[in-house]
C-alpha cells in the first residue's frame, strides 16, 4: 500500500491551493493513504484547513518558532525525519516546493521526480521536459521511496468534507541557523491570485509601458480576472516579476486566458497550455500565439481593449 506524505504550502494563516492539488495527484495512486504535514510557528489554523481536504486521513504538525518562514534548509531535516514512514513524499511544483523537495530527497538519499503531470502507477509518472516540448514517462524501482513535485496546473484541487486527525510530530533539535529570513516584498493586490484564478488576462511587450499596462488592469477588474505578463514585458519593466507567466514564471491553467500583445514564444506557451480557452489579441497575424488560440483577433490592442471593456463584464 502507498503511504503518501504531502508537504503543505501556506503563509502561516491560509493553506495554499497547491496543497489540495497535490492531494488530487496522490489520490491518483490506488489505495493511497494520505498524510499532510504542516510546518509552522503556529500550525493550528492551517492544520484545520488541511484536515478538511477529502481523503486526507492524518495531518501532522511540526511546530517551532524556526518554522515561521519557509526556509528549505530549516524545513528539510524536519520533513526527512518523518518521511521514513512513507512510500511517497509530495510537494507542489511552486517556488516553495521546488526549493524544498530536492533538499528533502537528498537527505533521504533518493532521486526526485520533478513536475509530475500524471500518475501511471505508484512508481511510474509522466513529466514535461525541454520546456514542455517533450513528455517523458519516468519510472523508479519498486520499493524505492518516491520524492516528487506535483505540477499544480495538471490537477484540480481536491474537495473538502474530510475530517482527518491532527497530531503533533516531534521537531528535531539542532535545526540549522545558517539561513535566515530577512524580508519579502509582495505586491499586495485585491485581484485574484494569478496561480489559481479562473480568468487571466496577460500583456506582452506590445503594451509599450507600465502606464499602458493599466488598461489591462481595468479590463481584468471588469472580468474579475488576474493579471499576468510575458517575460518580455517583465524584462522591460512594464510588470513585476511575480506576474510572469511561462516556463520560468508561473505555469497556470485558468478557464479563460486572454493574451494581449503577446507573440507567443514557446517559453510562454509552456505556461498556458493547460488553459481551457485561450484568446489572443495581436496586431501581427503571423504571431505564433494564434496557432494555439481558440479565438484569435488581429488588430490594435489599444482600440480592442476599450471596446471589450464596454462589451463584457457585470
Amino acid at each position, binding site marked *: 500500500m502507498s503511504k503518501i506524505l504531502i508537504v503543505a504550502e501556506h*503563509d502561516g494563516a491560509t493553506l495554499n491551493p497547491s496543497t489540495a492539488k497535490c492531494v488530487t495527484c496522490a489520490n491518483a495512486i490506488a489505495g493511497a493513504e494520505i498524510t499532510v504535514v504542516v510546518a509552522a510557528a503556529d500550525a493550528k489554523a492551517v492544520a484545520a484547513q488541511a484536515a478538511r481536504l477529502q481523503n486526507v486521513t492524518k495531518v501532522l504538525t511540526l511546530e517551532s518558532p524556526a518554522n515561521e518562514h519557509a526556509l*528549505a*534548509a530549516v524545513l*528539510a531535516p524536519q520533513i526527512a525525519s518523518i518521511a521514513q514512514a512513507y512510500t511517497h513524499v509530495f510537494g507542489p511544483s*511552486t*517556488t516553495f516546493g*521546488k*526549493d524544498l523537495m*530536492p*533538499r528533502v*530527497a*537528498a537527505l533521504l*538519499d*533518493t*532521486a*526526485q*521526480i*520533478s*513536475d509530475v503531470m500524471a500518475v501511471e502507477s505508484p512508481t*511510474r509518472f509522466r513529466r*514535461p*521536459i*525541454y*520546456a*514542455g*516540448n*517533450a*513528455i*517523458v*514517462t*519516468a*519510472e*523508479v*524501482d519498486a520499493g*524505492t521511496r518516491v520524492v516528487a513535485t506535483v505540477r499544480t496546473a495538471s490537477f484540480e484541487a481536491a474537495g473538502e468534507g474530510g475530517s482527518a486527525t491532527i497530531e503533533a510530530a516531534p521537531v528535531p533539535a539542532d535545526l*540549522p541557523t545558517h*539561513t*535566515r*529570513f*530577512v524580508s*519579502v*516584498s*509582495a*505586491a499586495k493586490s485585491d485581484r485574484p491570485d494569478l496561480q489559481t484564478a479562473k480568468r487571466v488576462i496577460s500583456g506582452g511587450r506590445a503594451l509599450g509601458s507600465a502606464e499602458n499596462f493599466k488598461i489591462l488592469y481595468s479590463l481584468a477588474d471588469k472580468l474579475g480576472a488576474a493579471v499576468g505578463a510575458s517575460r518580455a514585458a517583465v524584462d522591460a519593466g512594464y510588470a513585476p*516579476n511575480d506576474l510572469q507567466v511561462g516556463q520560468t514564471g*508561473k505555469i497556470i491553467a485558468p478557464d*479563460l486566458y486572454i493574451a494581449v500583445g503577446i507573440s507567443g514564444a514557446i517559453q510562454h506557451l509552456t505556461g498556458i*497550455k493547460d488553459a481551457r*480557452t485561450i484568446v489572443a489579441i495581436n496586431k501581427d497575424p503571423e504571431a505564433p500565439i*494564434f496557432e*494555439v488560440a481558440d*479565438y*484569435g*483577433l488581429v488588430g490594435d490592442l489599444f482600440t*480592442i481593449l476599450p*471596446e*471589450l471593456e464596454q*462589451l*463584457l*463584464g457585470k
Partner: protein
Amino acid sequence: MKRILVGIKRVVDYNVRIRVKPDGSGVVTDGVKMSINPFDEIALEEAIRIKEKGGAEEIVAVTIGPQDTQQQLRTALAMGADRAILVESAAAVEPLDAAHVFLKLAEREQPFLVILGKQAIDDDNNQTGQMLAALWNRPQATFASKIELAGDKASVTREVDAGLETIEVDLPAVVTTDLRLNEPRYVKLPDIMKAKKKPLETLALSAIGVEPRQRVKAVRFEPPPQRQKGVMVKSAQELAEALKKKGLVA
C-alpha cells in the same frame, strides 16, 4: 584563496526546435547545436562580476559530461573562468549524483560560494543545487535575482511566487540563478585565444569516488499533445459574443 565554483552543463541550444524520436526512445540530439545551459551562463557571469569587484580571486568552472563538453568549458574560460574541471561521464548523470560530484569538488576546492543554474533547459529538473546544499550541509539560496556579499555572509534576493524574498546565508553557500540576476557578456575573439592556454583538468568519476546509479528510468518519450487551432474573429463584438456564448464571461 577566495574561490567560486560554477557549474556548467552542456545542453541542446535554446533556439533548437526539440523533436522527439519517432520510436519514443529520446529526443533528437544528433547534429544539433549544443551550448552552455543559459542559467549556467548567468551563474558564471555573476561569479565574474564578483571577482571583478574584488570579492573573489579564482573562478573554477566544472562540468560533468563526455569529452565534447570541453567546448563549453573553453567558452566558460573565454568568458572569464580561471580554470576548468571536466568530470568525465559518457552517460548522463542524475541530479543526486551530480550533487555528489560537486560535493567532492567542494571538499577539494574549498569554495566560499558555489553558483549553479536553477535548472537545465533539457531535463528541467531544478534539483542539483538544493541537493548539493543538503549533502554539504550548507545554506541554499535558490532562484537568485540579486547577490550581495558582506564578509562571511551573503544577502540573496530570490524570485518566489509571492514576489521577491530576501534571505541571509552564512558562507560557504550554494546559490542557484534565475534569469534576471544579470545579462551574460559576449565572448570576444582574443579571449577565446587566451582561453586555450588556461588549465583544463579532466577527472574520471571513479577518481573522485562517485559511482553514479540510475534511479529513475526514462521509459518513453512523447511529443506533447497539440492544441487545436481555433477560429479567427473579426471584431471585439464577435469575440465578446463568442465568449458569452461559451459561458466564459458574463
